């Protein structure tokens, strides 16, 4: 328990250290999440458009 409290307090600088690590985790995870989500969205859009286009070309021929 004492060890846990020591770890949390980080020699009374805990707020600065933990905030720095949390901010890093939030920023890096958000960037990863946004990049994956955007990639999936664009890929889905591309598939829909490709299907539409193939259908239209087929119809025109």
């Amino acid at each position, binding site marked *: 328990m004492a060890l846990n409290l020591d770890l949390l307090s*980080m020699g009374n600088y805990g707020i*600065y*250290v933990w905030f*720095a690590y949390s901010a890093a985790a939030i920023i890096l995870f958000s*960037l990863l999440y946004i*990049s994956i989500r955007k*990639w999936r969205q664009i890929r889905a859009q*591309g598939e829909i458009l490709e299907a539409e*286009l193939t259908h239209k070309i087929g119809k025109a021929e």
Partner: protein
Amino acid sequence: MKKYANPARFNRLATKLIPWLAWPAGLCISLGIFLGLFNSPPDYQQGETVRIMYIHVPSAWMALFIYTTMSIACASGLVWKHPLAHISARAAAPIGACFTFLCLLTGSLWGKPMWGAWWVWDARLTSVLILFFLYLGFIALHHAFDDPARGERSAAVLAIVGIINVPIIKFSVDWWNTLHQPASVLKLSGPEIHSTMLYPLLIMATGFMLYFSVILILRMRTLMLERRIRIMRINNIYQTATTEKN
């Protein structure tokens, strides 16, 4: 290198590369966090706040590295019209901006307990802030034009001109009297910090580099596909017009 300039070939390579980069990135960052938080010793002067270094320093390295590669990519895009150059610079910019922001934020969190101030208009801090604005300017310029090619060219010029800020950041602590401490790792005479601190720092830096590679590849693929979709939309409009005419 030139053969991967082909977008289709790059796409195939990227699909294979992502898992090989993502897992080591996760491992290195987790190990870096563990060593930095629980295994490395506190500093004799700065105490436990030195643990912020394991985030702050690799972020600063990444901020500089990404900007330098972005400028090189922009220059090769302007000079040799390399098909992936502008895409890679555009994909790297938000990642670089995030690392620069993280560097400024963690620096501020480190500065408050050590210097007694969140921010000082010191040469190192100010030049890094300028780097952050350069990233934002680069991103803004890309979105400022209706013609994407014009946006790319203008942003490339800004990236190339802005490279002057990189040596200023690196040597600001030597050229001016600053509150920020001088370099202690990237020195010609070798690193000055103890191996118990150096290894977690290098592991974290490797993790950040691998993380950057994963996000860069992902974002490059997204931008390439976006470009393809734009062309497909034009084709779609053309096909609709042709079908209606017939």
